[in-house]
């Protein structure tokens, strides 16, 4: 199967496969679908355009040799006679590519992988030449569509065309064919390049010559193996050749021989991919796991009670008390004492004392605000009104106590330890993994598993004999 090989070589050459319009791979057809075309009452087998062609729904190849009234018989002819030993035997039928009026024959390229069945005889490989005739003012105007590419009896490739000067044939004199050949032709701007790929010597035999491509019109039919206009045939269905096609492809645009050389390798060979050497692995530090270590230490203090201690003050203290409250009437402005006890403050120590404060009696209805009423006497000056009121007097008792003792509660500090915010360091723990030391080496390309003897050209293959 050359589909994978051609797909590879197309991508290698163009980076895409869109330029491939037609691809017939005649090997391995037993596992593929054979189509059918009904023309009137006759059925014909159809070789379908296959991958990696841009649109496999177009350009099917009709096996035009023998039609049959039943689909089964037509298919039997295709698979049993036309397809022979993984090749399309053009000695049994030509192949008609359909719907080709959209293919610009003035800018296209084709590749053939073919071999002679026996003697070298002239034939058409690619037949699209068709004469047209119109009568205008009693003048017969002859025109043409397409062109033929074939092989002369001498075993040389030829190009047959028609231009304003009439018919012409150009022969690729410098290229000698062998029994099996991979050849290409490329039609560009006013030139045609032919090439034979010599994969045994990795060389190209090519020749380019001028052709007026402005006279090349499209044709709705292209025959592989025959032509409407050829010295030995009158129609494209008529068999002209004794060659077998291994594969064929038609591409858009001019493709130079150096590129068809690459494409041809994919046409003949198979794509392969493999491992030249497996990958090797090794343990290697891939990184480090870092852990921050914080300092430990005193984070604070707590205090526990450890008991108490009585401390002697070392000084005697005056003690006292007041009692025996009696009510005494006193006049406004007269002085008297107010007593307050310290008992509550020093009750725990048992020492008692008091204080007294001498104040003046004020008229309770005065609001404690006085204004002078005259300037004749002290009463007028001060604003006194001379009222009386009762105040409380006490009897006082004072003494001296012994030296006082004060009980003091004792506490002891206790350190609290833990992790502080200070960083003492970073622990780096290496991380290791098994990594690829040397990646596997992949290789891919085209492998040609074909018999090289048929490609050899150390002889002249002429009339079926090696000379």
């Amino acid at each position, binding site marked *: 199967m050359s589909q994978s090989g051609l797909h590879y070589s197309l991508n290698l050459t163009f980076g895409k496969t869109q330029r491939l319009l037609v691809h017939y791979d005649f090997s391995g057809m037993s596992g593929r679908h054979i189509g059918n075309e009904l023309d009137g009452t006759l059925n014909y087998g159809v070789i379908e355009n296959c991958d990696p062609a841009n649109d496999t729904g177009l350009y099917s190849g009709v096996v035009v040799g023998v039609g049959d009234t039943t689909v089964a018989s037509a298919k039997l002819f295709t698979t049993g006679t036309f397809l022979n030993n993984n090749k399309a035997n053009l000695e049994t039928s030509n192949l008609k590519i359909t719907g080709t009026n959209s293919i610009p024959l003035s800018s296209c390229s084709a590749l053939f992988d073919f071999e002679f069945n026996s003697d070298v005889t002239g034939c058409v490989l690619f037949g699209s030449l068709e004469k047209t005739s119109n009568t205008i003012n009693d003048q017969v105007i002859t025109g043409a569509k397409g062109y033929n590419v074939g092989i002369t009896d001498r075993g040389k490739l030829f190009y047959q065309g028609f231009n304003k*000067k009439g*018919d012409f044939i150009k022969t690729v004199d410098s290229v000698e064919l062998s029994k099996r050949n991979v050849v290409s032709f490329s039609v560009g701007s006013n030139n045609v390049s032919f090439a034979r790929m010599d994969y045994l010597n990795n060389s*190209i035999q090519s020749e380019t010559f001028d052709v007026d491509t402005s006279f090349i019109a499209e044709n709705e039919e292209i025959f592989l193996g025959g032509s409407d206009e050829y010295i030995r045939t009158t129609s494209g269905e008529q068999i002209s050749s004794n060659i077998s096609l291994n594969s064929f492809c038609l591409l858009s645009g001019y493709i130079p021989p150096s590129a068809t050389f690459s494409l041809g390798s994919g046409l003949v060979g198979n794509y392969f991919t493999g491992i030249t050497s497996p990958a090797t692995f090794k343990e290697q530090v891939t990184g480090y796991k870092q852990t921050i270590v914080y300092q430990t230490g005193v984070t604070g203090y707590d205090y526990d009670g450890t008991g108490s201690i009585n401390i002697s003050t070392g000084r005697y203290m005056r003690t006292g008390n007041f009692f025996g409250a009696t009510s005494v009437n006193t006049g406004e402005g007269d002085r008297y004492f107010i007593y307050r006890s310290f008992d509550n403050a020093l009750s725990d120590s048992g020492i008692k004392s008091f204080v007294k404060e001498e104040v003046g009696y004020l008229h309770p209805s005065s609001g404690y605000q006085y204004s002078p009423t005259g300037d004749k006497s002290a009463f007028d000056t001060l604003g006194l009104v001379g009222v009386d009121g009762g105040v409380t007097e006490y009897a006082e008792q004072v003494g001296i106590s012994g030296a006082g003792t004060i009980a003091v509660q004792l506490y002891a500090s206790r350190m609290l330890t833990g992790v502080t915010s200070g960083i003492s360091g970073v622990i780096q723990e290496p991380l290791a993994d098994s990594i690829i030391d040397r990646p596997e080496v992949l290789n891919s390309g085209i492998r040609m598993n074909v018999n090289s003897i048929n490609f050899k050209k150390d002889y002249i293959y002429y009339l079926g004999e090696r000379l």
Partner: protein
Amino acid sequence: MIYDYIISTGDITLSGCNSSDLGTDTFKKTNVKAGGTAGSFFFDSSLFTGKQEIQLSVNGQNFFQEIPATGQAMNEIVFSINTGDFFIKGQEADLLDRSKFFFASPTSIGFDSSLKYDIVTGGMFAATGDFGQSLKTNIARRYSSPSFTDYDYFLNGQKVYSGVGVGVSVGTEADFIPLFSTAANVAGVVRADNINEFKYAAYKKKPKTTSITGLVADVTGTGFIEGRTNLYLNGIQELQNSYLELFTGVNMIKLGFSAEISGGLPLNGKESSLTL
């Protein structure tokens, strides 16, 4: 009219052979047509291995090949040339570009241009900006004692001849300085005021070849190898199918018959009626 034939003679003992030892392995390296389309033309990269071996004729005008300087840019390789007319790319390019001509000026090539080329290995040299001194300097970098007659000279792609466009300014033939000026012994067209409009090129003559230059169209009396001839008409190279290579004593042309075929090919005729 100046007719200039460059004829491969082969070795003195053998003619028509294709021997690398004898320097006659030029069978596929002369008059090679370049195919292409839409202004893109391609060469056969299998014919040579060097970086500067193509003597290209575009519609008869000689185009000088220059080895490009390359630079790296983001995801691309930048090629640049100075004096040359075209360059080719090497293994750094993709497969299709490795056999493609890249021209300095896109307008110099048309979709219907006719390109042919020879593979030459003797060396090609170009210069500009003076009357020829720098061309001599370039030649002398490769050949220490060049001879004036060992080279073919081109002025802006048109071949010029000694005394008709190019001459020797000083020195002897073995130690010359080419001159493209309007001096009497040169008869050139380069003047001080138009000196920057011209570009000179020199190609070392191919081995085992003979140049026959004169005012007579037909050349007789010399042996040659078929297909390995070049013709320059007034300095412009002609296509090979514009002249005939005939051998003495062979009557090739019958008078009175049209050279054109008309009326189509004979159908169902015998094989011998048409020689393909």
